[in-house]
């Protein structure tokens, strides 16, 4: 999943730095992720994993870093399995 998220981030994130140089825990907003790009990233992730982000996860924290995104996506996938 980490690889996929990194690929999507490189594609739609519009970051001024190379995605490979970012640690999993690096602050993506500080790295230059704009709010517009973060929505593009959410849409790309929804499409790729065939999920929808519930409103309570649509906040800065959920998308603050690569590992935060992984946690958020994993949480949604897990909830779907349980359902």
């Amino acid at each position, binding site marked *: 999943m980490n690889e996929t998220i990194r690929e999507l981030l490189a594609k739609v994130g519009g970051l*001024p*730095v190379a995605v490979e140089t970012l640690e999993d825990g690096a602050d993506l*907003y*500080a*790295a*230059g*992720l*704009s*709010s*517009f790009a973060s*929505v593009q990233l*959410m*849409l790309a992730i*929804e499409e790729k994993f065939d999920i*929808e*982000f*519930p*409103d*309570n996860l*649509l*906040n*800065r*924290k959920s998308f603050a870093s690569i590992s935060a995104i992984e946690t958020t996506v994993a949480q949604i996938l897990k909830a779907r399995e349980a359902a």
Partner: protein
Amino acid sequence: MSLPAFAADMTANMTLGARAHRVAAVAAEFADRVDRDGRFPREAVDVMKAERLLGIQIPAAFGGESATTQEIAEVCSILGQACAASAMVFAMHQIKVSSLVEHGGGSEWHEGFMRELASRQLLVASATTEAGIGGNMRNSICAIEVDGETCRLTKDATVISYGAHADAIMVTSRSGEKAAATDQVMTVFKRGQYTIDKTVDWDTLGMRGTCSDGFLFKGEAPAAQIFPKPFAEIAAQSMLATSHLLWSAVWYGIAADAVQRAQSFVRAAARKSNGAMPPGATRLAEASNLLQLLKANIVAGLKTYADAKADPDQLSSMAFSIAMNNVKLASSETILVIINQAMIICGIMGYKNGTPYSLGRHLRDAHSAQLMISNDRILGNTSTMLLVQKPDTSLLG
């Protein structure tokens, strides 16, 4: 007067509302001169200080009164009915103070500054816009230079509202020379720690008294004066909401005064016409309807903010940003419709300056509302968020 009656009278005199009304009386007296000459509303701001209104938001523990955003909005609307420029200076000051209160706690320097602000009634301005960023304050070109215990900053600030009259300025910048444009911090500079050289004149259609000139800012201060939290967090968690809500409260005040003038006009006409309905009466009913809609919109927004304050996740959620954006869009557009209705009701007496029904200043001041953070930019942000945000269809939230 008996002692208990005297005490009760004193208490009534000291309520926030009573203090705000005393400032409003002075603001109203000078409103036309401030507007005509495009000068700072010095008299009104002096009374704000005398009534100790500048520090009301500071927590009581630091010498303030722990006033809520609702209470501050009420003061904004009282002042807005008297002089929009004075009200806007007060609102903008309180927006800066909200950043200090919400994000300065725990930092020794910022807590000390809160005490100083409350005790000396300091007026705080901000420099968030910059030449070359295209109006997006979430980007900076300038970078703060931290050199041991000291920080230095030079900023080509295209707007610093009442900058020449402030006691301190909060300035945004990149967090360092190598930081991305969105990696911003905010720093408090006190008067004496900076110089400002005017580069752009504020000669505008309305809101002339905010004196939002452009300046070249150069500051040097202890590095402890940099806010410990990133500006992105400050902007999302306090600045966005307080700006939209307090501005809207000022705008509500402008519209409410316009409706009041229109109502006086209609009543005077009704008295003269022996009970026959004056032509503007129906339009007044419509304006009153819109004013109530505007009020409900702002009150609901204030409640949403008060509820969200308890939960940082909620504060930085898209649903909350959209709600605040919608408050701003609706208020800034509705006031123009209301004031225009009032103008049609009052006719030539509203169009002329210097009558009890004059509405020119109201209309010109109100036109700033759609531009203070362009509504087009806000619509763009909201429409982006709506690509992923699900609609909230509940009535009571």
